[in-house]
């Protein structure tokens, strides 16, 4: 909430003008019944036509003033709300961009996207409505009551009774039905879940011949939903009739007491009409107020969700004096390992067991390091620590002998080319995508990368070459083509360290083999990490790290590991034939 106010502060003028003008509009509306009353009492009684015309003119004037005030208010309210929403959106986007992987995992991408789009829209809309209505509606309600007092005290007492009764009914129904509506929503989610399950599990459901029981389950959930809906409907359907009864009863009482007052000569006929009119004005505003409250509670919930994202602080802090960190290498020069892990432990947020424990190794410049192990063994986690997507829980990761935490993030990441498991490309041309790796890459550099990644052939086949359009997510390309392009994207920057995170899974064996050969031949001086499930992919590596349940089960060349490492032998034997294992 505080955050929202700080955005509104930039639009202080607008945020003040909007409700004030709304109030002005309302106060002019409050004069209308009085004008009509004097029309009746003075104009009609005295048969004074000019007076009636004058009063009619005043009514028109009030209408004109009303619309001018109202338009002014709407304009400034919209300006403030949209301004605040736009600022909020920009800052949230920037904030999310600063978060590290650990926080992104914790919040979840899907959530971030809805916060960014849906929630901010709801907040923006809420601000707009609040600015317009939060002063106006109570003002009309109490204004009508006060005006009633100026007309007649006894009549006004009817207002004093009716307004609290109306408020109790309107807000009572609101309070009762709102949680019920949440229940309805939950039940609807269940129905949706049932539908989704039947779609995603269609093969299993049919294989086990469970269609009928799925249908029965759906019907049960559906029946509960209807019951809930009808029940809530019954309650909220009370709102209109009950308020209608109260208002009209109040009017009846007004007429009766008014009649007595008129009979006693205290009140005129026109004033009675004015009192009745004031009563009618209240109802509409109370209903508006109730709707406003629903809107506010929704907007607050959305704002809280947005706030909770803002409150997540980026876990990875940039060092101020980037590059000033001391080199921890024993000696400077070629013998300093390019990448070294020193007894690294890592646990994901909230996880009971560490995902990596006690990992130590040294990778020299120009070496190829294979990382093998099953899913969940910690291969990708290990690779993610090198570019500091996550920080190690304990231990240290050194690049060129310097702790990565003491290097500038940009310095560090600029020398690393990473190919993630999921091959994503972005909307734009192929050239745009390739330049993600290096902003000023020439076509020549790009083509070289495409050559190495075995993508040149199919790129050449498409007529537009580097100007080829790529759809969102690269959906106009096959999985294998996408993978090769993501490899090229990483190669464009000629990284010192290349990380291939199971990047060849969609390639057929032949292309995969060619790719590995090309990388080996064209990456002199580059330290390459190859993560794979396939023993054949890492067999040729200078060093193979075997991970099992987050621990380093073995480290060495293929033949060394075949001798010494049980886990590695099991993996190889399950995938390779005897001759190949040798």
């Amino acid at each position, binding site marked *: 909430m505080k955050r929202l106010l700080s955005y509104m502060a930039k639009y202080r003028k607008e945020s003040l003008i909007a409700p004030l003008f709304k109030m002005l*509009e309302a106060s002019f509306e409050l004069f209308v019944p009085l004008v009509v009353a004097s029309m*009746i009492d003075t104009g009609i009684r005295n048969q004074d036509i000019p007076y*009636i015309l004058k009063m*009619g003119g005043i*009514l*028109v004037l009030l209408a004109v003033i*009303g619309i001018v005030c*109202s338009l002014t208010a709407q*304009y400034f309210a*919209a300006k403030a709300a949209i301004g605040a929403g736009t600022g909020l959106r920009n800052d949230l*986007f920037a904030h999310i961009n600063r978060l590290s*992987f650990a926080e992104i995992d914790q919040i979840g*991408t899907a959530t971030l*996207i809805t916060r960014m*789009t849906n929630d901010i829209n709801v907040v*923006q809309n809420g601000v707009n409505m609040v600015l317009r209505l939060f002063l106006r509606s109570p003002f009309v309600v109490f204004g009508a009551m006060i005006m009633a007092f100026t007309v007649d005290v006894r009549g006004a007492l009817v207002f004093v009774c009716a307004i609290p009764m109306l408020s109790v009914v309107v807000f009572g129904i609101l309070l009762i039905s709102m949680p019920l509506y949440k229940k309805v929503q939950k039940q609807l989610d269940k*129905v*949706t879940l*049932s*539908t989704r399950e*039947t*779609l*995603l599990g*269609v*093969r*299993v459901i049919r*294989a086990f*011949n*469970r269609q009928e029981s*799925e*249908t029965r389950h759906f019907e049960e959930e559906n029946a509960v939903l209807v019951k809930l809906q*009808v029940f809530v*409907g019954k309650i909220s*359907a009370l709102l209109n*009739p009950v308020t*209608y009864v109260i208002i*009209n009863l109040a009017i*009846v009482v007004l*007429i*009766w007491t*008014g*009649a007595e007052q*008129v*009979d006693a000569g205290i009140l*005129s006929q026109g004033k009675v009409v004015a009192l009745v009119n004031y009563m009618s004005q209240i109802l509409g505003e109370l209903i508006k107020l109730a709707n406003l409250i629903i809107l506010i509670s929704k907007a607050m919930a959305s704002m809280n969700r947005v706030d909770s994202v803002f409150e997540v602080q980026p876990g990875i802090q940039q060092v101020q004096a980037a590059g000033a960190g001391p080199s921890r290498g024993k000696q400077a020069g070629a013998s300093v390992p390019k990448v070294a892990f020193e007894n690294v432990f890592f646990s994901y947020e909230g996880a009971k067991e560490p995902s990596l424990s006690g990992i130590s190794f040294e990778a020299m410049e120009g070496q190829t390091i294979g990382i093998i192990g099953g*899913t969940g063994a910690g291969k990708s986690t290990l690779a993610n620590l090198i570019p500091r997507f996550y920080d190690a829980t304990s231990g240290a990761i050194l690049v060129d002998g310097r702790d990565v935490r003491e290097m500038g993030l940009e310095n560090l*990441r600029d020398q*690393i080319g990473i190919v993630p498991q999921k091959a994503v490309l972005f909307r734009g041309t192929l050239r745009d995508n390739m330049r*993600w790796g290096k902003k000023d890459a020439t076509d020549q550099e790009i083509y070289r990368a495409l050559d190495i990644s075995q993508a040149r052939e199919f790129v050449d086949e498409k007529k537009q070459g580097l100007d080829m359009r790529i759809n*969102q*997510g690269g959906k106009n390309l096959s*999985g294998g083509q996408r993978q090769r392009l993501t490899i090229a994207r990483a190669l464009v920057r000629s990284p010192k360290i290349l990380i291939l995170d199971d990047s060849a899974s*969609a390639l*057929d064996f*032949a292309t*995969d*083999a060619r790719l590995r050969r090309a990388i080996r031949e064209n990456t002199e001086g580059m330290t390459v990490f190859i993560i794979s499930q396939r023993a054949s992919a890492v067999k040729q590596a200078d060093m193979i790290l075997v991970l*099992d349940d987050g621990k380093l089960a073995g480290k060495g060349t293929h033949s060394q590991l075949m001798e010494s490492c049980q886990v590695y032998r099991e993996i190889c034997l*399950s995938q*390779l034939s005897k001759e190949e294992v040798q």
Partner: protein
Amino acid sequence: MKKNDNTKTLKRILLCIRQYQWQVACSLILALVTVALTLYVPILTGQAVDLIIGPGNVDFSGLAGIVKKIAISVAVTALAQWLMNHINNRITYQVVKDIRTQAFNRLEIVPVSYMDSHPTGDIISRVITDVDQFSEGLLMGFTQLFTGVMTIAGTLLFMLSINPLITVVVVLLTPLSLVVASFIAKKSYTMFKHQSETRGELTGLVDEMLGNLKVVQAFGHGEEAQKDFEEINSRLAGYSMKATFFSSITNPATRFVNSMVYAAVGITGAYAAIRGIISVGQLTSFLSYANQYTKPFNEISGVVTELQNALVSAARVFQLIDEEPQPADKSNALELEHAEGRVDLEHVDFSYSPETKLIEDLNLAVKPGQRIAIVGPTGCGKTTVINLLMRFYDVNGGVIRVDGHPIQDITRKSLRKNYGMVLQETWLKSGTIRENIAYGRPDASLEEIVQAAKEAHADSFIRRMPQGYDTVISEDGGSLSQGQKQLLCIARVMLCLPPMLILDEATSSIDTRTEIRIQKAFAKMMEGRTSFIVAHRLSTIREADVILVMEAGHIVEQGRHEELLAKGGHYARLYNSQFAVT
């Protein structure tokens, strides 16, 4: 033609509501009562005002009668209104339920190809959102339209009955309101269109950038993304400003028109009152009519768009409900008891779409207990074979026999009962682990379930879960690892253990230990059973009795490992490219 479609949809809708025709009739009658009485009350109020003329000139006995009348009509109106709302709700939700159930039932009998060719999100939104939109929009729309028209007609009638002249004034001013409303609607429509287009663009960018935040960060693309975002965001702010402002004019503008009508009625009414044509009380009735007269017009213009949306939604839902179901089992179809496990494919042709031939003239004879491994690169159509065996899809030509019976002549239910299937995409239902294992045999005892879990090597991890076998797993097994999910799927089949198996090995291996368990469980299941395995591990492939080598949808080779290697064809190439040392 579009008109035609609309009328067709309308007829269908009426058919859906038909069984609730009495309730609909009730609702309409109640609406009529409500409208008539609501309009009658201002007349009564006017009559009451006429009895309050001045000091000593108040007809209390007449007033008492009128007050009684007001009280009664208010009470009846309130009751009628509540009943009407309640009945409307009931009809709406019942119709929703009926249609949803119909749609869901259809989902259980359409061919699997429907699910394969339609995005899940689209089908879900048909079953959930569209049904809601359709029934609410339609029924609420209808009643609103009905009461709206009734109110306008009733108001006119009542006004005419009091005084035709002033009525003419009101009627003449009415078009003004319509013109203003339609002008604003048109203006704001284009703005809203711009707004939603730009919003779509922004959501697209957010989806892309936040959805792949890790890649964005890895390549340091955050700043560019922020720049793009802010550019679109500021464009959005511009359009939103205009759209919000224009649409927010509607209210003040109609209120302005309303005030003009009010002023005009006031002037002419007062004039008429002086002339003695109408009484002061009748003038008050007129004024309160003038107040509510323009309201239904605004509502009706809103209803029309809602009705149009409802029709579109209804058409989408009906499209799903009208989807062709899979052909029913033949009337004399065979109930396959316990198959021996002989499977023959004779001259089988199949393709998903006529343009691209997939399987052509496939022949295969499988003896009981044999293992068939299907190999080939991803996307070559290996799963197509599963689809055909299980009759998720029917062959286009040729015949598949089980124990010599063509499977087209066997009931789907009994055919599928004879297959145990473990797919790579592990689908679990939200529910307890126990329910999931017993999915194929809901009546299984706990002992049997535990036994199956033991045989699938799943018992130990299940016992370690917080509630053991009663642990609830959320949608798609969220808290379980991929390997654990796979083990549960195996346990599910283990409990039924049919004579034939279809296994889809996971491409990505699970952590080494679980993987060994899965392999053991697979081996245990396959003992003495005819098994079809979509294979990724060479160990599985080597032990198969027949290897089917698929490429681009065709079966290019079949035979045993050694035979195929000796042949030096596709298989040999595939095999060598993976393991050849270069």
